[in-house]
């Protein structure tokens, strides 16, 4: 088990390799479909994403009626491939060093990871409770107008479990599994 601690950097994520199981501590920003399209359309990010990790997640959130404080009660990853048209650009223009999601991403993102020093970290899809437990505080809410699941949530995390499935050296577990299963498929059909 490896560790990735805040503050993050391109140098630190370049140390990670496909297959590494990693516990992340520090900070995350959620961002999914609406946020990626928004940034792709040339809008300014409401938060500085330089050297940050973006999490493809639309959490279940609850607001305490008395204190107005938010808690995240369920927070697993959403399917990342929908962001494939935008992700490389967000890595390039905003300097993010990590993308957490599920299902993996494509060649454009893999190339951007290599060029700019970024890594794709696979969280366990559907494990909304285990992952919500690792969120220690909600520190900010931006772009609320997209709806709560689609907004940017700034979160403090501790020992957030992920698996590196695309590293900054051009390797992708998703490509490997797809190729090997393709061979089996050919034999079966």
């Amino acid at each position, binding site marked *: 088990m490896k560790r990735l601690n805040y503050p993050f950097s391109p140098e630190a994520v370049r140390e990670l390799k496909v*297959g590494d*199981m990693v516990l992340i501590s520090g900070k995350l920003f959620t961002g999914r479909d*609406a946020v990626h399209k928004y940034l792709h359309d040339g809008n300014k990010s409401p938060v500085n994403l330089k050297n940050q990790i973006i999490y493809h*997640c*639309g*959490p*279940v959130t*609850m607001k305490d009626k008395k204190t107005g404080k938010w*808690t*995240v*009660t*369920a*927070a*697993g990853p*959403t*399917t990342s*491939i929908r962001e494939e048209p935008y992700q490389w650009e967000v890595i390039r223009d905003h300097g993010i060093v990590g993308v957490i999601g*599920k*299902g*993996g991403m494509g060649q454009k993102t893999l190339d951007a990871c290599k060029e700019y020093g970024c890594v794709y970290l*696979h969280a*366990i*899809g*559907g*494990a*909304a*409770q*285990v992952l*919500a*437990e690792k969120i220690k505080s909600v520190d900010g809410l931006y772009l609320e107008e997209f*709806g*709560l*699941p*689609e907004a940017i949530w700034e979160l403090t995390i501790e020992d957030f*479990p992920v*698996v590196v*499935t695309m590293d900054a050296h051009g390797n992708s*577990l*998703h490509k*490997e*599994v*797809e190729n*090997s*299963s*393709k061979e*089996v*498929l050919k034999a*079966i*059909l």
Partner: protein
Amino acid sequence: MTKKLPAKKPVSKSASKKPIKKPIAKAKKLDPKTQTIESLLELIRVTSTEIPDDVAKTLMKARSQEEQNTTASYAMGIIKDNIDLAKFKSQPLCQDTGTVIFFVYHPPGFFQNAFKDLIKKAVVKATQKGYLRQNSVNSLTGENAGTNLGEGHPSVHFYEHNKKEVEVKLVLKGGGCENVSTQYSLPDTTLGAGRDLAGVRKVVIDAVYKAQGKGCGPGALGVCIGGDRADSAYNAKKQLLRKLDDKNSIPELASLENEIVETCNKLGIGPMGFGGKTTLLSCKMTHANRVPASYFVSISYMCWAFRRQGVVLDKKNTIKKWLY
């Protein structure tokens, strides 16, 4: 995360023995409508936060088959922890609480519209309580009203049956697995799939291959052979109501179901697409007549977080029995 835990966790299997209703609610003697909403709310809560026993059993078996110290076994371990934690905290297994699909089986002379109104009220309440995420988006405007109500939401299907009681089944179908669900039109020349069961087998396996890890595998399939495009897709989804350990009454389909599971698990896609032994937990198939010109095969892919539950309501609209 500071939510108050329920004093006693209702266990779905032994529900008939243990009263599920909180004593306070019972003492109040709710009017029939409020009682129905309360029962439906409990159905939504249990569906969103607890995995049915048949699915849990299959998942735990799959977990034990993965090799130790692999990312696959790591994933299955987190899946197990998540199942336990969601139940303990009474919070959603998965943050994507999906399309809310009700199947209502009722005796003759039942008021469907009135019941649908109560379902809607229960859905709004479940959303306020965090059992459901604000998950319904207007496809034209992009607006999310935050209630899970809207054009076509929740999805409610009524069936008349010959029993005296009302049965309500609920499936929460997440978007990730819905996105890898698909429909083929046979013959399919790229796959060399003709209009027969051998062709059906090919397209189903192809669908599992194409899904890779994107549908939150290990997954479970509902399949319909035939029907028009709409009925075919709907009937495939309805197969998800079957228990994973049941047996198809049509022998050809029963053996095809088993063979597809075995074969798909040779693909090596594994949990989350990390590579591994279990790619598919189950495959449930049905058929519907078609017109001579069409031959559709529809595949509904369900993620490991297979959220399905059902209840029988008694005359007072309290939960008499859990179905899964």
